[in-house]
């Protein structure tokens, strides 16, 4: 069953019955590969359309989700259930739950995902006080205002004063891994427990390198939940900062208090150009971070020419893109020119641009440029009717993700295994041209509704 990717959350929607007979086709090996390639922030199974489940079926799904959690540090669990199902799941697993339970899909997006949501005032109730705190912490981290009910009676009495509430939910225990999410074009790595040599070993440097390649330049390590950092962990972070400096990358660490790390290591970290903040909130309050992340594009210092291997995947990339665009718009896409050149564009129209890093059996950059009106047309299905510019950018990111997964599948059938990074979205083409810095790639110009669409593939 193919997962649906929404705002960096992979969701499965089984329906009917979940038991030992069918659980293995709900999350299959192929789905796992796709998830590992996409590295979403969260992986959830929606129980909205599920009539019945038994322990064997649920245990299988939990096993696979925990495997994925282990591999890509995602937030995993079930969502969309009623009170009865919530208690039933707790009983099935004897109240020893290492995954999360979030009562609805909407509420899930208050906890995770790249969707920028309004600041909400939320009242929380959980029987277990540790859970109450866990839920509150997770929401506060996402900048929501949270009120915790003292007890059930207090919750029943005061809930009417709040627009939003969270109950019948559970945050699964977190393990020592790094989770990734993107906010305002800044990559945030959430660190847990000990940062030591194991952390350095497990850190996905390939993903990090490719994120730099597609133009992310501010990386924030949120160490608020870290217990301690030793010399190996600190050395790894300073090395990451020094290596990134060559590409104009800035690294920040939040919540690094003196009890967690020796002062001498803090000095080393600062000497390596890493900026320290008290917490994630103060990091985002520093407007220069958001400004830099969104307006400045890193220049690629090394120029690498496009090679034959990269060009060989062009037909599959074109096919996946054109097919998706045509299916989602009213118009056919007309291919005009194909040239090996620097990325260039014709006029100063308003554009939306997505950049994805392709890595694995081959490394390259995939840029998709669309005039904003065309982007609105193809993204309509993914947005509400009165969408904001932020929603449009989110939708364009989702749309680019769909194309990315199609390219992955197409190439897989030809035994070429690749992965893609999350798309980085720009709304100024000059920024992308600056990023590409005269790189020679293959540019395909299309016309759709007399407007421009450009596909650019470079190393």
């Amino acid at each position: 069953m193919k997962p649906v990717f929404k705002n960096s959350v992979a969701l499965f929607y089984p329906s009917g019955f979940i038991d030992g007979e069918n659980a293995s086709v709900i999350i299959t090996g192929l789905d796992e590969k796709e998830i590992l390639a996409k590295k979403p922030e969260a992986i959830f199974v929606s129980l909205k359309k599920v009539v019945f489940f038994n322990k064997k079926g649920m245990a299988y799904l939990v096993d696979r989700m925990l495997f994925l959690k282990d591999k890509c540090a995602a937030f995993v669990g079930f969502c969309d259930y009623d009170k009865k199902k919530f208690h039933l799941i707790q009983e099935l697993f004897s109240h020893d739950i290492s995954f999360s339970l979030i009562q609805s899909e909407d509420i899930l997006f208050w906890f995770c995902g790249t969707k920028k949501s309004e600041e909400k005032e939320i009242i929380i109730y959980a029987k277990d006080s540790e859970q109450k705190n866990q839920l509150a912490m997770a929401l506060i981290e996402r900048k929501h205002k949270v009120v915790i009910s003292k007890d059930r009676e207090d919750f029943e009495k005061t809930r009417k004063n709040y627009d939003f509430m969270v109950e019948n939910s559970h945050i699964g225990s977190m393990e020592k891994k790094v989770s990734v999410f993107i906010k305002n074009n800044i990559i945030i790595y959430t660190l847990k427990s000990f940062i030591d040599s194991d952390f350095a070993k497990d850190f996905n440097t390939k993903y990090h390198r490719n994120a730099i390649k597609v133009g992310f330049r501010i990386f924030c390590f949120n160490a608020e939940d870290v217990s301690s950092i030793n010399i190996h962990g600190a050395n790894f972070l300073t090395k990451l900062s020094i290596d990134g400096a060559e590409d104009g990358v800035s690294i920040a660490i939040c919540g690094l208090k003196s009890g967690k790390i020796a002062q001498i290591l803090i000095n080393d970290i600062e000497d390596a150009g890493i900026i320290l903040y008290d917490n994630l909130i103060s990091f985002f309050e520093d407007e220069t971070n958001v400004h830099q992340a969104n307006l400045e594009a890193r220049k690629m210092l090394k120029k690498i020419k496009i090679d034959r291997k990269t060009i060989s995947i062009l037909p599959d990339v074109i096919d996946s893109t054109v097919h998706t665009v045509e299916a989602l718009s009213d118009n056919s896409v007309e291919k005009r020119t194909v040239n090996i050149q620097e990325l260039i564009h014709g006029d100063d129209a308003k554009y939306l641009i997505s950049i994805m890093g392709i890595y694995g059996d081959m490394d390259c950059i995939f840029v998709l440029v669309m005039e904003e009106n065309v982007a609105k047309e193809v993204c309509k299905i993914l947005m509400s009717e009165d969408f904001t510019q932020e929603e449009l950018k989110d939708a364009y990111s989702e749309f680019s993700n769909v194309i990315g997964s199609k390219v992955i599948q197409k190439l897989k059938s030809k035994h070429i295994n690749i992965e893609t990074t999350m798309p980085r979205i720009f709304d100024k083409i000059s920024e992308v041209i600056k990023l590409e810095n005269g790189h020679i790639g293959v540019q395909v110009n299309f016309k759709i509704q007399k407007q421009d669409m450009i596909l650019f593939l470079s190393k």
Partner: protein
Amino acid sequence: MKLKIKSTNSIKRICFLLTNSTIENYISTIPPVPKVMKSCLSHLDAADMMQAANVVKEDKTFILFLSKIVNKPIFGFTKEIKDPHQIFGILGLDSAKQIIYGYYSLLIIPKKWEVFDFSNKKFQNLQSNLIVNWNKILDFLNIDDKDMRACITLLPAALIVCEMLFRDIKGTILLLRESKQTSFDELLFKMSGNTLFDVTSKIAKKWEFNKNIQDFITLISSNKLDKNSNMYRPIIFLRLLISYEMSKSYVIQSGLNDFFDFSLKFDENDILDFYSLIAK
């Protein structure tokens, strides 16, 4: 097929692609029931199994279908049965009628499935499971209604209807479902005002099934089910059965899992009764 309408609502945008007249056109292409089947059924109605078996003996396609169905493991026969007299004798009147109705679906089954990764073999598996489990349910509910018993094999025709109606707009439909998780049944309803079971009921009418069967099929996806009606429990159990069969791994792998979306909430006791009855 290309999209032409500009509208803010994505479902509305493709509505014009599938309308009532598309459905009527489709139904007009469905062939009538062969005379030999009608004759066989009338002999079964008269409880003359010998004559019924004689009538179908010369129809090799039907004999092949019959033996493929009854020799499925779910029927539990230890030896392969081929002769129609033997088959009708073992099955009894009601089950023989069920299987003949099931044969009707072969009149409209596509040679190759395009929207779903399904096959005629899987389709017959589904039919066999439905027959056996539906009989268990009716016995459990103490319902002895021949029409209700017989119509079960016609229900998978809804799958064929879906395959045929969505075939031309397959790419768009699959993309829509990928983003919005709308069931096929809901998509058809939004486009044409008909559920897949409404269309199946129209097919039942064309094949001259009686009015009770046509109404019963329509009720499966109706939101206006009266709790006090005699039909309430059998319909609820039938919805559970359809849900259960559509959750089988071979169906999920075919892309058919999210076929219907019965919005009615099921009673916990009904679910437990059902599961212990079917899964035991």
